[in-house]
């Protein structure tokens, strides 16, 4: 048969279906492409679980190149606490995220895990969420072993502690219950009130009227006391804090309708408004749910998709390699240089660790760490470079949290008060006054109308859409920025970018690229020992010039460097063996500066004697000139550089006429320069590399740090821009400016809804139910408008 021939020519792995190109392992007449796939098959075969291969053809995932994750850290009691969702001392439930799940065979295998280990009682898969929930006996099998078992059968669980907590909190269904109860009562009350809608009051027999009335009261009790409880609670808490939030008018409206209806029915003066009350609560709850859902999507995107462009230096076979933070795995060994941040919890392998935990704890005194101890994510190394082995996954949300730590928000930056709070303060008070006013106006002539007007005003004026417009627009813009390699600390940064009047640039590493520059050494010849010492010294620092020089020196070995220090704006120094080395500016290294050279120069001084100078040809970023020209039409530009004025001539041709160029600026000078601009009420956007201009970045209204494939995650900045996207800066700023237009229009839309609704409501022409329909409708309009307009604007700019 022809099929047989094809099969023989290219053997496919029984487990994963890939071609067995490199090697073929035969077991029981079945072929496997690698040891890993064979191992999984053997485990399944031993336990009579080969149905796995019958349900789907070759359902496995190739075990080639699968990193062997280690789960030993799950033995830690505190970690276990965080992961497990339930435990009664014997039986424990845990939820794992298993991204590898992809077909019905996966479901079958994972749900038959109890056959692999007696300790596992049962397991359930949620295919859509790619989660497996496992119930197991902790006496028989430990949590870490469960994770290892999963990994062994080809489904290594992805463990992220921030995630796990999210999984747990999602199990709150009270909103669903509330919506269900409200919907049920609303439907039945409406049914019972139906005769009232059709005709006048006289058709129904009084006995029916009474029965329907009391049934309505009975049905409205769960709505009022259960479903609507959250509005009352929220209103009560806000009033206790002498503050009126948006729930106060809503709670007031519901309460008035309920009490009024009960009195009408009991005194038999009318049919009441229980249908309106129930409909109102139902629709409001649905509206809240919708709003939460939108917020949730936004935060989800932020946490999972906007990985910072921060890179880490991976050590592999003694070679240094730059990899993105997102690729960092437990077990990796990385190099952490002076002033770099430790991206994930790790164990110290070698080097003098002097960790500054001020980002985490606020305590700025560095802590000495001994070899073999753990260093924690968020700490900053001060001193020579250290080697560490990562033991935990990088938690993106944890780093974002650190970034948003209050320590780094400049104290004098005005705090953005959430729009919803400002609205609540004045808006709600005004609305209550209008409601009371219109009720009083109608009261003498028409009691029914007065009540309608009162409640309709309270409901229609709910500023949900108003409050939604700003965070939703900004959230979308943050996402578009993230796609373009521009990462913001939080949404408020968009607003501060939009207000910019002055742009201040740093030179080295910001408008220049260090990577492509050629390094030339002039001066006394250096012997091999000195070369090794110099290479080692330069590789301690993360400054772009240091990195470029370290790369250029061809010396295989590494010498240990002691008493290393980096003086911002001056240079670096350290001791290697007998040599005390200083490298940096001319003055720092005790050399004479001959100004007129078109290069950045790093002077070297060994044991107090000037040795020579490394000069690097400066390469400006592509499209810099055009970019600056575009920017100069709208903004004042300035350049502050710590280097000498040798480049002034070139720079003055690149920078448009009228730009301020300043040289020989220390970090303090840069900060003062920004301060000076701000004192004239200018809004300053500073672009730097986050190393010797951290102070200025923090001082400026918006501090952007340009990342060049080096770990210079500086929490002092407000945004990180990938170096490769540098020329997009004018587009990005212009886009941020448009955000205020979008917010403005969506505010107008929601105000329009409110204004039109209010004008009908005060005349008593609007029923409260209609108001309750209109309200979520305005939120939906705003959300749709923002989503579409943000996309269109981004598309038009090619972002």
């Amino acid at each position: 048969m022809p099929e047989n021939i094809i099969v023989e020519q290219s053997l496919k792995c029984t487990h994963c279906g890939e071609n067995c190109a490199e090697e073929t392992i035969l077991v029981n007449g079945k072929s496997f492409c690698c040891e890993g796939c064979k191992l999984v098959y053997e485990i399944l075969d031993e336990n009579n679980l080969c149905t796995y291969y019958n349900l789907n053809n070759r359902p496995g995932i190739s075990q080639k190149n699968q990193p062997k994750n280690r789960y030993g850290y799950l033995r830690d009691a505190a970690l276990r606490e965080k992961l497990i969702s339930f435990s009664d001392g014997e039986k424990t439930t845990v939820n794992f995220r298993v991204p590898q799940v992809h077909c019905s065979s996966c479901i079958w295998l994972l749900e038959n895990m109890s056959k692999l280990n007696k300790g596992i009682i049962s397991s359930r898969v949620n295919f859509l969420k790619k989660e497996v929930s496992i119930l197991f006996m902790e006496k028989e099998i430990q949590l870490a072993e469960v994770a290892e078992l999963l990994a062994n059968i080809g489904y290594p669980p992805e463990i992220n502690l921030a995630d796990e907590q999210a999984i747990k909190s999602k199990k709150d269904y009270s909103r669903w219950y509330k919506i269900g109860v409200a919907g049920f009562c609303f439907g039945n009350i409406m049914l019972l009130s139906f005769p009232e809608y059709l005709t006048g009051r006289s058709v129904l027999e009084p006995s029916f009227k009474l029965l329907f009335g009391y049934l309505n009261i009975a049905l409205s009790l769960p709505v009022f006391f259960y479903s609507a409880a959250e509005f009352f609670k929220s209103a009560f808490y806000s009033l206790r804090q002498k503050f009126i939030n948006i729930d106060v008018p809503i709670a007031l409206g519901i309460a008035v309708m309920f009490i009024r209806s009960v009195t009408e029915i009991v005194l038999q003066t009318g049919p009441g408004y229980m249908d309106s009350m129930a409909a109102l609560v139902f629709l409001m709850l649905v509206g809240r749910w919708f709003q939460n859902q939108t917020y949730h999507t936004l935060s989800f995107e932020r946490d999972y998709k906007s990985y910072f462009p921060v890179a880490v230096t991976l050590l592999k076979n003694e070679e240094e390699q730059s990899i993105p933070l997102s690729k960092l795995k437990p077990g990796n060994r990385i190099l952490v240089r002076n002033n770099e941040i430790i991206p994930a919890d790790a164990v110290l392998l070698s080097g003098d660790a002097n960790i500054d935990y001020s980002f985490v704890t606020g305590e700025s005194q560095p802590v000495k760490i001994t070899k073999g101890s753990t260093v924690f994510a968020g700490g900053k190394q001060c001193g020579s470079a250290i080697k560490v082995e990562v033991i935990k996954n990088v938690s993106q949300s944890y780093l974002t949290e650190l970034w948003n730590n209050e320590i780094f928000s400049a104290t004098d930056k005005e705090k953005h008060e959430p729009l919803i709070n400002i609205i609540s303060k004045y808006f709600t008070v005004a609305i209550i006054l209008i409601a009371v006013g219109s009720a009083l106006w109608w009261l003498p002539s028409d009691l029914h109308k007065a009540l309608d007007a009162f409640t309709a005003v309270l409901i229609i004026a709910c500023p949900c859409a108003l409050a939604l417009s700003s965070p939703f627009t900004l959230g979308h813009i943050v996402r578009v920025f993230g796609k373009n390699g521009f990462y913001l600390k939080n949404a408020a940064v968009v607003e501060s970018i939009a207000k910019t009047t002055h742009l201040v640039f740093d030179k080295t590493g910001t408008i220049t690229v260090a990577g492509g520059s050629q390094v030339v050494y002039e001066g006394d010849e250096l012997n091999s020992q000195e070369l090794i010492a110099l290479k080692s010294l330069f590789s301690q620092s993360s400054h772009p010039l240091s990195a470029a020089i370290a790369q250029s020196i061809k010396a295989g070995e590494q010498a240990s460097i002691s008493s290393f220090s980096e003086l911002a704006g001056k240079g670096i120094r350290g001791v290697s063996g007998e040599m005390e080395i200083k490298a940096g500016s001319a003055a720092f290294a005790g050399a004479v500066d001959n100004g007129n050279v078109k290069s950045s120069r790093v002077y070297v001084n060994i044991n107090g004697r000037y040795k020579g100078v490394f000069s690097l040809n400066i390469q400006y970023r592509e499209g810099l000139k055009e970019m600056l020209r575009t920017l100069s039409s709208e903004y004042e530009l300035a350049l502050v550089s710590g280097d000498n004025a040798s480049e002034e001539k070139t720079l003055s041709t690149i920078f448009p006429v009228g730009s301020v160029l300043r040289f020989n600026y220390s970090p303090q000078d840069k900060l003062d320069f920004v301060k000076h601009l701000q004192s004239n009420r200018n809004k300053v956007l500073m672009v730097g590399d986050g190393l010797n201009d951290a102070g200025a970045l923090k001082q400026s209204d918006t501090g952007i740090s340009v990342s060049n494939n080096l770990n210079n995650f500086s929490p002092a900045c407000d945004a990180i821009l990938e170096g490769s996207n540098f020329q997009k800066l004018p587009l990005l700023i212009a886009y941020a400016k448009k955000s205020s237009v979008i917010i403005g229009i969506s505010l107008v839309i929601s105000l329009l809804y409110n204004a039109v609704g209010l004008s009908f409501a005060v005349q008593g022409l609007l029923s409260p139910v209609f108001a309750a329909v209109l309200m979520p409708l305005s939120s939906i309009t705003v959300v749709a408008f923002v989503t579409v307009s943000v996309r269109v604007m981004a598309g038009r700019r090619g972002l």
Partner: protein
Amino acid sequence: MSAIFLLIGISLVVAVGFLIAFLWAVKTNQYEDDYTPSVRMLFNDTPPDNNEPTKPE
């Protein structure tokens, strides 16, 4: 007309039944995952070992 009393009573009982069914469904996580159960019900309890693959080579 007294039949209406009875009918309303019955209709309410039926409606409450549906409400309870809804609450029960939410509580037992049936809204969490609406795909996996459709696959799960097709698995045999004791799989025959020499089963033909579902898809031909």
